């Protein structure tokens, strides 16, 4: 429990550090992303206790879907605000996503080296 609190303090501290940098340097990036990059960098430098930070990170990541859910609720109440644009939105989302999946698959098929044999045996049984 104390490990979780220590981890949560690290996460909150890095968010605040991210916000500080965003405000001071006028970065066009959100504080969370800056904090995440700093967190990755800190772990690479082996500073901070990974167990503490992981203890707080895992439950938060597991709860992400619930945390964004209140934001999704709003979409059912904005139908009138975007009247006349829903066709554009639907075509953009469906067509755009199909096209980008196709592009990603083709790019990766072109550039990805063949799998090492250990992985290949795992893939053999989908």
């Amino acid at each position: 429990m104390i490990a979780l609190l220590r981890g949560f303090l690290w996460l909150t501290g890095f968010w605040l550090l991210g916000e500080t940098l965003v405000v001071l340097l006028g970065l066009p990036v959100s504080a969370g992303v800056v904090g995440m990059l700093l967190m990755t960098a800190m772990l690479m430098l082996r500073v901070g206790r990974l167990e503490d930070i992981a203890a707080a990170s895992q439950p938060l990541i597991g709860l992400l879907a619930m945390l964004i859910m209140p934001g999704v609720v709003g979409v059912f109440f904005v139908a009138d605000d975007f009247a006349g644009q829903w066709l554009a939105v639907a075509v953009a989302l469906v067509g755009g996503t199909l096209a980008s999946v196709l592009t990603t698959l083709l790019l990766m098929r072109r550039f990805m080296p063949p799998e090492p044999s250990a992985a290949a045996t795992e893939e053999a049984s989908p």
Partner: protein
Amino acid sequence: MSASLIELREALLVTPLSAIALTLAAYLAALWVVERIGRPSWCPAVLLAALLVAASLWGLSIDVADYQRGSDWLMLLLGPATVALGVPLYQQLHHIRALWKPLALSLPPAAALASCYSLALAWALGASPEVLASLAPKSVTAPIALGIIDELGGSVPLLMGGLLITGVMATLAVSLLAAPLGIRDHRILGFALGINGHAIGTVRAFEMSATAGAFASLGMSLTGIFTALCLPLAWRLLGL
């Protein structure tokens, strides 16, 4: 009697705890239902939970703005949760070291095109600048996308709806296109799911195999970082 009921209603609407309780109840109920119907990929629990909340608000004639004032307390946790995404990213760095070249060649164009295709289609069909801004980060995982939308000035509800549809569509598209393209490599399928379908695609990838899941979450984080760093800058340069 009715006067005191009105008073009670007012008191319950003032505290954020009502919105938090409603959110938790709807989410748990949605998880239960989704589990019962065999976790179909076209119906993520978030979508069902949001429908339940919307229906409750409508049924109790509560203003959605009142609900959101309360649920903002919950969404405050998205800040530290975004920072927390640095932990899985750190744990997958060995994949980046091993495959940096194919990644550097295919991830930036794939992540950029994921946004550009939709922007071009929406623009061609006459979408307003606000709609364009809301659709631009559609392939980015929600906590990062919410940060991007602050910079671009789009609509949060529209972005959230777009994220859901994109995730579901990307999952469908990968399963439809994999066979005709002759791709059976779970690393590639995982990447495609993570880059295009963010968290929803990543969940699907973990159902395929651990390899696909690991590459999907890597694709998701890298797309999020790439888009968060480049999109607001590109937006400024284009003068949008």
